[in-house]
């Protein structure tokens, strides 16, 4: 039984390929011991490490809950009882005065609460929730959330009240945490005042400040162009809200949290309010105690103008629909990031830019559209602005080719090719050279559908990709991690243009079904309609905890669900090992 597929793998591997992927320890269940299957991280027991995320649909207020199933306990029938919806409860308070900081009154003005965190059982699964409370009665609030380990920020709509931050875990075991957000009193929140200008024009007598921007109005109302916010430089948590600088004077007054006094230094960030506005972002490190007044300069970052360029592939053909962004350091050491623009049919783009600080201090990032043979590129470029015109050099970028990954998918047990399988490849590690920085632009997932003979191909950038295989028939999805990189052909000495992926054989299926129930108001064990269930395998991939998706489904209007998961023994649909 094992012989034929192994021969096929061998044939594929030697089929004219000049590049080779580095993949996980297995490519097929046939390579695994009895009772184990091939997963993204290698061979493993399909009954171990299963954690199920259940989300109770938008109508019920039941957000994501995680259920860790003990090894070997997931049978053909598995019900999930969500119980009461999880929530954050608490009260907004405000100190009455600095003289008696423990004397507090309820804060009943509008507050936005934002919880950002991740699952405690599913590594890599992030969750965020947000609620706005217009007039919380006696300051009390309740916000429905999912399970997780959260950083929770309460930001009053009145920006002179500094935000309050706390941490909390929410889950079936931890219960509903009660949180008190204590905002400082009016006299307890110090103000950081000063002036932020572009530079002092010393050619004038007396010298006069050059302002950061001209006043900008929308519908007759002045819109702030640049805003300031104070952060803890160690944790990056905010110690103030965003405050505008006056466009006519450059003056500002930032009301900061009293906690700022306990830090040795503070980070003041000046940034344009809208993306793409041609004003740099500037970070100022400020020592404590806070000075009575600050005088800050952006530095003369120059004027903005429209820069144009052209993107072509290795054959000189225009790359249409590519996403382009320009970013880097400007004069005065601020950082600038342009709007993201798209190339037209002739491969041309134009974007509003400032001048770069020095030769090559800007980076032009280009992401060709899915399916294009041109590869992602980041190149150092220079922008010079003079007389109202911007010059980008180089202004014509030729992109290298993507590698064409070719693969084949077989039905369980090698029972012929699996056709109509949707293959989705998602880039895992987005690194920039050896710096480990995140790419300036994400790379969109690549997709292909297998042909009648089970084969597919897709152009991909070099990198680590997670391949997911969604069968068209009732079979479990499969996933693999593959590192794709060009390898020199030993004969020609040139990098290969194609990569043959290891053969993927879908696993046999077993059906799991059940009922999702929860408490709705005073009604216990009520069916939860349209719940979303995701079955994960929690494991370790390359030394790091990871959650591998095994299957997903949505319950019907009566809370009943059914899903197929991979199995090493039982069969549902024509597959056996």
């Amino acid at each position, binding site marked *: 039984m094992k012989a034929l597929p192994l021969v096929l793998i061998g044939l594929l591997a030697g089929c004219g390929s000049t590049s080779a992927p580095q993949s996980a320890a297995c490519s097929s269940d046939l390579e695994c011991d009895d009772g184990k299957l091939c997963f993204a991280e290698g061979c493993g027991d399909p009954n171990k490490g299963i954690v199920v995320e259940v989300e109770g649909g938008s*109508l019920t207020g039941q957000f994501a809950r995680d259920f860790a199933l003990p090894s070997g306990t997931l049978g053909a029938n598995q019900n999930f009882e969500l119980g009461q919806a999880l929530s954050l409860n608490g009260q907004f308070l405000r100190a009455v005065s600095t003289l008696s900081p423990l004397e507090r009154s309820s804060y009943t003005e509008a507050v936005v609460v934002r919880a950002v965190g991740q699952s405690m059982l599913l590594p890599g699964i992030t969750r965020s929730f947000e609620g706005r409370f217009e007039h919380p009665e006696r300051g009390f609030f309740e916000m429905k959330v999912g399970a997780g380990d959260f950083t929770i920020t309460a930001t009053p709509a009145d920006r002179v009240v500094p935000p309050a931050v706390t941490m909390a875990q929410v889950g079936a075991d931890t219960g509903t945490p009660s949180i008190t957000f204590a905002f400082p009193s009016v006299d307890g929140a110090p103000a950081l005042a000063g002036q932020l200008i572009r530079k002092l024009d010393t050619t004038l007598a007396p010298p006069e400040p050059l302002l950061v921007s001209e006043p900008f109005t929308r519908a007759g109302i002045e819109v702030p162009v640049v805003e300031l916010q104070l952060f803890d430089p160690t944790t990056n948590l905010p110690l103030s809200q965003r405050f505008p600088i006056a466009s006519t004077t450059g003056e500002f007054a930032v009301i900061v949290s009293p906690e700022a006094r306990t830090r040795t230094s503070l980070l003041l960030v000046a940034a344009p309010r809208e993306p793409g506005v041609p004003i740099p972002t500037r970070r100022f490190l400020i020592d404590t105690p806070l000075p009575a007044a600050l005088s800050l300069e952006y530095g003369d970052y120059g004027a903005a103008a429209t820069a144009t360029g052209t993107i072509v592939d290795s054959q000189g053909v225009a790359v249409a629909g590519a996403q382009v962004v320009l970013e880097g350091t400007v004069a005065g050491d601020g950082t600038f990031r342009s709007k993201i623009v798209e190339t037209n049919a002739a491969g041309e783009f134009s974007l509003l830019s400032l001048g770069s600080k020095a030769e090559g201090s800007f980076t032009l990032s280009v992401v060709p559209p899915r399916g294009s043979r041109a590869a992602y590129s980041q190149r150092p470029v220079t922008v010079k602005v003079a007389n109202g015109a911007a010059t980008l050099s180089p202004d014509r970028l030729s992109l290298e080719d993507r590698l064409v990954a070719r693969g084949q998918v077989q039905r369980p047990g090698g029972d012929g090719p699996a056709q109509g399988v949707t293959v989705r490849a998602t880039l895992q590690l987005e690194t920039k050279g050896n710096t480990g920085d995140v790419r300036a632009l994400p790379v969109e997932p690549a997709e292909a559908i297998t042909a009648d003979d089970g084969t597919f191909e897709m152009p991909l950038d070099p990198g680590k990709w997670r391949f997911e295989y969604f069968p*068209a028939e009732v079979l479990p999805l499969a996933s693999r991690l593959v590192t794709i990189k060009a390898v020199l052909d030993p004969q020609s000495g040139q990098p290969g243009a194609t990569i043959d992926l290891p053969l993927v054989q879908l696993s046999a299926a077993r059906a799991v079904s059940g009922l999702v129930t929860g408490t709705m108001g005073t009604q216990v064990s009520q069916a939860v309609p349209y719940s979303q269930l995701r079955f994960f395998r929690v494991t370790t991939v390359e030394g790091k905890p990871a959650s591998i998706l095994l299957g997903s489904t949505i319950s019907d209007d009566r809370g009943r669900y059914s899903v197929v998961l991979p199995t090493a023994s039982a069969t549902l649909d024509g597959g056996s090992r």
Partner: protein
Amino acid sequence: MAGLLLCALTVCTPLLGCLIPQDDQVIAALPPKRNSPPRIVGQAPPTPRTTYYSSSGCPNKTFSLTVEDEDTGDTLRSLWFIDVSPSALPYAPTKTPPNGSKQRAVGAPTSLSFTNALSNLASGTHLLTAYVADSEFDEVSNGVINVTRPPVVLPTGETVTDDGYIDSFTWVLDVEPCP
């Protein structure tokens, strides 16, 4: 005598009923099953009004719909618009192939043109609208969206046009700078 009368009432009367002449018209074969509409039954984020943070550097919301379609073999297609208007063009349609289930998750486009358009939004109020259909989108013109209506052959040999259905959902986005 009374027994005979009782017999006549209880046994014979139903028998007499069977003698009523029946209509001999043959019932026609059932017509082919017509298309069932897809229905949006849930969405994420769950509230129609939600805060969205501009700038790609901010962790943000992902948008998806839960769609129910009795026809489990239908491929669901979705069209997404930002600030829909008669002149607005949709982003590349997404396809959700059949998976054997009546309930399916329909996600927003993963194309960079869509995600970058969201991250480029200026502060203020914007609309994100999704249309879901169970057949091919045929035409998007002046804000009118039509879908292909595949022909169905009736037992009589007559061909009629089956219905293709569209459902839609709109989020109101309060776009703010990344906090």
